[in-house]
């Protein structure tokens, strides 16, 4: 319930207890899991544009439910959980993008509006569906870099947090991130 970052060792212990079937551990884990997801959406909330908080709340909630559903993918520790949360967020956003794109491609009847998403900054023009496919190709040549992008972009982790989760130095993360980002930018024609 508090906003302080939970001790990873404690989280890992709780996860172990939850896996052992202890209901209290799962209950104790709940706010931590949610806080984690909330942190993922943190940048979003900080923007505080009208109407967005609800959208983000829905997103976090959906991610949470997805995690609960996939509980048989058992969390090993906090780092593993971060990775799973980032992946859940990726799936949700990609599904939404796919649904949206499907409608956009929907044929002659479609009347496009120019004012949709007016609040979005120019940098927002990333087609998550296309990015997802590019990320899959990146994973073929370098799985670690693809994971890194997932953590950074879909999981919202900072360089330092990503380094922590992947167990490497921040400098390494930074170097890999630069390459992966440049490559994706090239693939998406953003260069």
């Amino acid at each position, binding site marked *: 319930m508090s906003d302080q970052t939970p001790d990873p060792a404690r989280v890992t212990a709780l996860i172990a207890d939850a896996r052992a079937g202890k209901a209290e551990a799962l209950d104790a884990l709940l706010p931590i899991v949610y806080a984690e997801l909330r942190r993922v959406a943190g940048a979003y909330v900080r923007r505080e544009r009208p109407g967005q908080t609800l*959208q983000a709340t829905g997103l976090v*909630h959906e991610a*949470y439910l997805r995690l609960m559903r996939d509980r048989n993918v058992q969390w090993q520790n906090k780092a593993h959980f971060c990775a799973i949360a980032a992946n859940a967020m990726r799936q949700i956003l990609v599904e939404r993008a796919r649904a949206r794109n499907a409608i956009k491609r929907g044929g002659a009847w479609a009347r496009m509006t120019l004012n*949709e998403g007016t609040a979005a900054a120019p940098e927002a023009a*990333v087609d998550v569906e296309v990015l997802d496919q590019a990320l899959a190709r990146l994973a073929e*040549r370098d799985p670690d870099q693809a994971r890194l992008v997932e953590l950074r972009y879909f999981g919202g982790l900072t360089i330092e947090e990503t380094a922590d989760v992947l167990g490497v130095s921040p400098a390494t993360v930074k170097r890999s991130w630069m390459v992966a980002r440049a490559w994706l*930018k090239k693939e998406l024609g953003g*260069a």
Partner: protein
Amino acid sequence: MTREQWARVNALFHDGLARPPAERASWLAAATSDPAIAREVQALIAAHESDGAFLESPAVAFAETTAAPSAPLLIGRIIGPYEIEREIGRGGMGVVYLARDTRLGRAVALKAVSRGGTDAIGRARLQREARAAASLAHPGIATVYALEEDGDDCYLITEYLQGRTLREELGDGPLPYGRWRLVAIAIAEAVGAAHAQGLVHRDLKPENVMRTEGGAIKVLDFGLARATTPPATGIVPTITQAGALVGTPGYMAPEQIRGQPLDPRTDVFAVGVLLYELASGVHPFGAGPGSGGAADAGGMVAAGDVLARIVAEDPPPLETRSMLPPAAVAVVARALAKNPEARFADGRELADALRALPAPAQTPSTSGTPASGERPIAGSHDLRVQERWWVVHQASIAAFFTLVLVPAWLLWRDVEPKYLRLALRLVLLFSVAAGVSVRLHLWFVARYRVGALARERRVAWPWLVATNISFIGALAVSAFVLLDTHAATASVFFGLAVVHAVVSLMVEPATNRAFTVPPDDADGV
């Protein structure tokens, strides 16, 4: 490109960036003989150096651009026999439209329930659920007419209802007991009818319950939550006819939060939350309204805390937050039990318990049968007799205070010494000004926002006590001071002080009690 090549590209990329741009081409040619690697390195450096904050902000920051499909895309389109006219609501999962059934000429509500690419299993479940929901014939449940398929997309066609959701009604403050009981019975019966057919709603909340313009209570979206949800979990944010953006987790039962199997008792919990909220105007676990309008970052922060509280904490006692009789408080508490075993078994059992509660005798809206909730419910300004007495009481005291002010002010001209005169006048002025305004405020609240009265009265209580004491004090002191010079006036003042003391100590608590406790309870039934 092989992994080895890629590793080489990575190394050269960083080396190249460290060099001045002018030297890079010649350096690269010397560094590698593989043209594929050279090309890749060049392209990556170019991409890196092109301006832009590509991927620097996390994806969720732009979620709104990836959310629900934009409305105008479907308007004017014809799906089956339904012509889509306009959008009437939207949420995280899609949009609800008003459509016209071209064959029958009636208005229907149309919701896109697929998520772009529902798989075969998902679709079969959707069909099954829609069929089950369509089989529900109950006046308290919005009727499902059809499930239309159009390519990859599915559309659920339901009864088009005009009215207000309970979320909107909650904006007017909590319901008085009589209305609360009727609404509670109507919801529980509707939910119970679905339970009897083996259907669990899974996503009951104020946005999903509507009061139609005719006054009927209708539960919306039966079968939808489950149909659009993976089998193992409970709820996915759904859309409602009123268009509230959903995703507020405040109505999930503990077992739902834990990802455990659901049954009718899950709905009972959700109805319990709803009833608590309707009675008190506040959410039992501190969730903000799902359709609060303006964004508050706090709502986001609260969501996880709300889930944690649902699992672990008992809500603050309802008796301190509402004017419900103890028996009704007990029913809500049982519906909100953490352990499903301790709750009512289903909606019908909850409805039975609610019906067994005493009906407030003189509320106009409770005569007649509440069963279907079809009766229009009286406006909040229709007060019971007891309430009228309480209002009269407040108004009389306000008038009394004001009237006393004039003679007291004039007669105290003779009071000596001067500072005592000044003190008396100030004290009296304070009691009258504060006492009258607080009472008029309470009177206004009782008349137009009766649901907020309990809270307002708690806030006003110290003021009333203070003004009563200072009023009585000022009159009594002046009576003593004036005793020698104006014996008659002094005794009148003394009399008024005594009268007001009696009124504040005995009459006012009595009218307060009569107003607060439903008559059945007051009679000790």
